[in-house]
């Protein structure tokens, strides 16, 4: 049962977005996140949504699939929506006993909800179109300049990729230990929260011990294969920017410029329901 958990969220497709250099995608996602906070009104959101929809269409990741990924965060969105709708002062629209829904509250609630949805959609597009290994390689490459100020970029990336490698191994291990404990009468499913949490102790202790043993053996195997940190290492697939990457960089820059210009108001176009 534990083996059914899919690793990461990668959605394999042969699209332009999938083929982009991970560094470009990471940088673009980062810029996109900033731009969402630059947006001040709903015209801006409409523009961002159109761009996001276009990119999603090009990526060939089905919207349905992406929407399913939203389910776990739906609670947070609804929760912030409800909080926002009641806390802002302004012209009262509806009064529910001590709670008032104001025009400002409604505006803020909708605004933040849209922002959250765009944030999650946009960032998940990165994980849907980029393999976890490419992501870690991309992060390593982007962080490399920071090694000068003492950030162990290579080590962090190596840890991330080893973690990814061992997720299925540890899941299998958990499954095995769970079955072994159940065979001896352990009960993981019944009882209240406290009892269930307690019943996990005999699962986690052997799991931790095993994880440490694995780590020691892996470290030895890595040393036996001449691993000695990031210095002097070559790569099987070195990352190199292609033509489509440069095009993507130009496009994302144009997108950012458009958002900034629109939000600054110098276009003279009317703002749609902006915050004050």
């Amino acid at each position, binding site marked *: 049962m534990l083996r059914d958990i899919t*690793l990461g969220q990668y959605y394999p497709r042969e699209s332009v977005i999938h083929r982009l250099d991970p560094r470009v995608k990471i940088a673009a996602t980062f810029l996109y996140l900033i731009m969402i906070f630059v947006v001040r009104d709903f015209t801006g959101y409409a523009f961002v949504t159109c761009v996001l929809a276009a990119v999603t269409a090009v990526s060939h990741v089905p919207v349905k699939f992406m929407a399913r990924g939203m389910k776990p965060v739906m609670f947070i969105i609804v929760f912030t929506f409800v909080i926002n709708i009641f806390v802002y002062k302004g012209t009262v629209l509806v009064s529910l006993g001590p709670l008032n829904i104001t025009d400002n509250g409604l505006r803020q609630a909708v605004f933040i909800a849209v922002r959250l949805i765009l944030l999650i959609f946009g960032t998940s597009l990165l994980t849907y179109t980029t393999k*976890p*290994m490419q992501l870690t390689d991309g992060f390593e490459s982007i962080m490399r300049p920071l090694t000068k100020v003492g950030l162990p970029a290579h080590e962090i990336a190596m840890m991330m*990729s*080893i973690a*990814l*490698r061992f997720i*299925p*191994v540890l899941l*299998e291990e958990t499954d095995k230990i769970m079955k072994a404990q159940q065979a001896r009468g352990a009960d993981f499913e019944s009882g209240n929260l406290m009892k269930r949490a307690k019943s996990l102790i005999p699962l986690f202790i052997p799991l931790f011990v095993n994880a*440490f*043993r*694995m780590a*020691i*053996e*892996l470290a*030895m*195997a*890595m*040393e*036996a*294969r*001449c*691993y*000695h940190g990031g210095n*002097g*290492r*070559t*790569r*099987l697939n*070195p990352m190199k920017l292609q033509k489509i990457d440069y095009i993507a960089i130009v496009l994302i820059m144009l997108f950012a410029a458009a958002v900034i210009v629109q939000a600054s108001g110098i276009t003279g176009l009317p703002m749609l329901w902006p915050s004050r």
Partner: protein
Amino acid sequence: MSSIVTAENLKYVYERQESPEENSEQAEEPASAIDGLSISIEKGSFTAIIGSNGSGKSTFAKCINALLVPTEGRVTVDGMDTADDEMVWDIRSTAGMVFQNPDNQIVSSIVEDDVAFGPENLGVPTPEIRERIDRAMKEVGIYELRKRAPHTLSGGQKQRVAIAGVLAMEPQCIIFDESTAMLDPGGRSDVMDVIEKLNSRGITIILITHYMEEAVRADRIIIMHDGRAVSDGTPSEIFSRRSIIKDAGLELPYAVRTADVLRGKGVPVPDGVITIEALAAWLADYGRQYDAD
């Protein structure tokens, strides 16, 4: 022929009970794991080292690879002293090592990336890495699996990935530290076939095992017991020294035991018959003669 691995009066003592390796294998003997071992292994040979748990055979393997440095004595690999810090990477790329647990020695989530791990560490240029890993993966028969994730492979396949990873470093010698112990019979025979194939093209093989059926496939067997080499010779010599094998806490190969039973029943099986194949062939021959008589 010159020797590739030599041990001169090697002693190794684990420092107290800190390493978990020691707990599993050396729990009853906090004393020296290896106690005065002198061995020399020829280039291109196929040597099996057998011994019961705690005999020091795994410790010896780690000493060859410079994962452990001798407490006393000397180990050299192709003339390089393992105690010399400068030589560590040369030693490890000359004498590669395949471990017991297939899962705990695969680093990457994609087979070909894992095979490339060794050459990447050695700083091999990118186009050459590609050549080396393709050659290595074809040689052990996992080329078709190169894009797969390791956790979707069987134990035998994973172990062959590990072998390819070592091969890609182009070693002269490969040490197999109980590499078949966790495999099913199918995976085990696949790995053994790969080992024989590598030996036939000149790679020195040191096979550490407690399966006698595997050891009989070697040219030479060394029996270790209590940190010493108690017997050394060809498989047929070794398996005629029954008392030594018993004292070392080992069992004779199935074919040898069967031959003993047959001899007891008056069937004149010759001494050199130590593999199941040889025994079967001899019996078929004997049966034919018997019928003719």
